[in-house]
Each structure stands twice: as C-alpha cells, then as structure tokens.
C-alpha cells in the first residue's frame, strides 16, 4: 500500500476507535447490551434472513415467471422492497401517541398501496415502450 492509503487507513482506524470509546464510555452496561443486540441483530437479519429470502424469491421467480415480465419484476422488487423496508416504522406506526395528533398523521397503508400501484404502472409502461422501441422483444432490461 502507498503512504496515502496507509494514512487514509489510519485516519479511519482513529475515527473508529474514537467512536468506540464514545460508545463504551457514556452509557451503562444494560444500555450497551441493548446497543450490541441491535448491532449484531442488524447483520444477522440482513445476512441470514433478508438476503436468503431475496435469493430464494429471485430463484423461484426466475423459473416461474414468463420471460417478458422478469426484468420489470426485478425492477419492482428492488424499488418496492427497499422503499417498504424504509417505511416499516410508519406502516407499523409503533410510535403513534394519543396526545400528539401531528405525529404519524397519514393513512400510510393507503399511501403505500397507491405508491406501489403507480410504480407497477410506470415500470410496466416503461418496459413496454422499451420493447416496442427495440422491436425484438428480447432482454427488455438492457
């Protein structure tokens, strides 16, 4: 590694150590256990739950879905899947409180359904237009 890369790496290690010290020095043991649970839980949920579920879903859809819908379905999986994950706290409305009507004050499930509907229509139209332009019907995602 060059000097520049070594220096950059050292800056990174220093920032990480500072953060670790901040984390460990300002809270009680119980709080740290809770934070550790979230740190480990996030990785486990992603690597051993979400990622395998997506792999299996893609493999199954790859066999069952007719060729022309595979590319638009992949686009919708990425967009709707990730936006839905972002929306978990509002869809669940776990933070809603009787004394604060201004918090979580929308009908999120209706909004989500409308969003999904709009995306399905847009992606379907987009992929039809793309195929029509190419005129061959093969590999609509390219």
């Amino acid at each position: 590694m060059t000097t520049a890369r070594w220096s950059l790496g050292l800056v990174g290690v220093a920032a990480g150590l500072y953060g670790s010290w901040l984390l460990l020095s300002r809270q009680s043991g119980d709080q740290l256990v809770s934070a550790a649970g979230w740190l480990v839980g996030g990785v486990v949920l992603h690597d051993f739950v979400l990622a395998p579920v997506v792999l299996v879903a893609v493999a199954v859809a790859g066999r069952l879905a007719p060729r022309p819908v595979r590319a638009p379905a992949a686009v919708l999986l990425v967009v709707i899947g990730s936006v839905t994950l972002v929306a978990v706290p509002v869809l669940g409305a776990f933070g809603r409180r009787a004394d604060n009507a201004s918090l979580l004050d929308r009908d999120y499930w209706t909004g989500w359904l409308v969003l999904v509907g709009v995306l399905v229509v847009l992606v379907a139209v987009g992929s039809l237009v793309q195929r029509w332009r190419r005129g061959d019907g093969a590999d609509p995602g390219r």
Partner: protein
Amino acid sequence: MRTRPPAPEDFRSRLRSAAVTSRVGLWLAVAFGVCFVTGLVSHYAQLPQQPVRFPASPAWGYRVTQGLHVISGTAAVPLLLVKLWSVYPRLFLRPSRRVRAVLVELAERASIGVLVASAVFLLASGLANMTAWYPWDFSFRSTHYALAWVAIGALVLHVAVKLPRIRQALGSDIDDDRLDRPSATEPGVLSRRGLLRTTWLAAGVAMVATAGNSVGWLRDVSVLAVRSSDGPQGLPVTKSARAAGVLETATSPAYRLSVEHAGRNRALTLAELQALPQTTETLPIACVEGWSENAEWTGVRLRTLLDLVGAPTGATVSFESLQESGPFRTSALPASFADDDRTLVALQVNGEGLALDHGYPARLIAPNRPGVRQTKWLSRVVVG
C-alpha cells in the same frame, strides 16, 4: 440436494460485479458522508459551550442541514441493500491455508463486519427515531453519534483498503469483466446499467416518498412522510404538553416568567409580557427528527427582557422549562443567538396565542437552532 454451505462460485450472476459494487458504493459513500457532516453540525449546534460560535444566520441553515441528514440517510437504505447484494458471495469465502493470510483476512472481515453492523444500525435506528419509536434501552442520541464515528471510520478504512480496485472498476467500462469472479458469467434479467438505474430509482422514490417532512412542496406526494406538516396552528408537535407534564403549571394563574441576572430578578405574568413591546419574526422551527416548518412568531425580543435586569451582551443565557424532567428541560443559548434581534420569547404563532403544545404561555424561538433547544413552556431565563 447439496448440504454444504454455499461457496462464492455458486453465485453466477454477472451483475454481482465490482463494476456495480463500486458505482453504488460511490453514492453510498456520498450519502454517508452527507449524513456524517450534517450530523456533526447538529451535535455541535446543541453544545452549550461552543469553542467556535455557531452562526445565527442564515435562519434556515439548521433546517437545511437536518433535512439533508434524514433525506440522505433514507436514500442510503436502497443503496446499502444493493451494494450488500452485489458482494454477498464474499460472505462465503473459504479461509486461506497460510497463517499470515488468515490474519489479514480476519482483520478485513472484522472491519467489514463493523462497517455493515454500524451502517445498518445507524439507518435502522434513525428511521425508527424519526417516528418516535424507541424499541431499545440505549440512549439514541449518544449511541447514534458514537456509531456514526465508528461507521465513518470503518468506511474510510474500507476505501483505503479497496482503493486500487475501486479506481480500476470506476475507470473501466461497466460491462468490462476483468475484475469479475471467474464464475460470475451468467447474464442477469437486467443489464448492469439496468440494475444501476433501478437502484437510483429506488433511492429517488425513497427520498420523494418521505421528504415532505422537510421539503414543503413535496408534502402531497410524500405518502410515507412521518408528518404531513400539519398540527395545531399549522405546525407539527414533537413533545406535547401532556407528555411534558405541564398541563397544570402552564395554565395556572400563578404562572410567572422569571428573568434573572446577578442577583436581579424580575417575575413577569403573561399580561406583563404582553404589555412589553411586541416584535414579529418569520423563523423556521426545525426538529432534529427532520421535520421543519416556517412560522410567524410574535413576542418580546429576548434583548428587551435581558435589559430589564441589566444583563450585558455577550453572555450565554440559560432557559428552563416548566417541564419537570427530561434531557431537554433546559437549554443554554450561546451569546451569538442571545444577542440576535430575531431571538424572541414568543407568545403567539401565526397570529394566535401559542397553543399549549407549542409552549404556552411563552417559548424561546431563535434563528438557525435545533428545535429541541427552542425551549417551550418557559419558566426561567437566567443570564451567565
């Protein structure tokens, strides 16, 4: 049926390529960089003692930085998911046989583990916190802050380690396969360009669907925004008067605002505050949770109150709430804000007396400040 765990060779899609990883990673690094810098600004703005004075102008500064913080954090979710998908086979790399190589591999795995864990933690806890959902026992503020340093440190280290590969991947055509794993040859249902465009679309949709909190004209299309930006008197509320436990004290006829400096003390009733010269300022209220809204505030200039007790300029002023507990019961206002003519002890908002949830009878409103430090239900103003 195979019973062995998967190996990197089992992943055959040519979409899982350094060409995709580096391009998504670049934007992910930008999103995390913006989050980190704006997060530092927000923490600095909340320090009671600031070695370098936080500026009171522009009044909308904090509104922009904190809006950027939550918007770029939201956009990072799809970016992170696609990036992790593109490198997922590496999770199943078999360790080397040589001791020295194993140590290097372990160190790299550990640094990647720290990066992924802290990145997922920051995004998940930030999204939950925005909706006032706290399914944890740790302090959100200090943990989110500490792990931001951990994540940015691990990110910088990761870039340093991967730099030659990143440069090579970004410098070559997206369909170039020189950096690919030998087994990654199967065409995907999308092209690499198609996957990148899809990722940008996902990040864009995530931003637009939530940004109405801080970007007013997106309000009607942000169907997943935590707040529709409405509330009593056209303003959202983060902490209600009931939650703060001030329903009785704030409405009691015995209410006084005590202004104190060096042994001099003036206790003012609401009527006495209303009888002082009134000023109107248009200032945003910008919450750390990302929502912000402009409003027209009317009340007494802070300077007018400080003059009643002969307080000098250039002093930090502390504000106390009727609220009996909680980390934001008090707030220290640095001199640059205390001396600013736009800083008010507000009695009205948008032409009406403050609603209880907005801090009746009197609240602090200063330009370019985190909303959580704009103390509501004021009971004491102490100079020095």
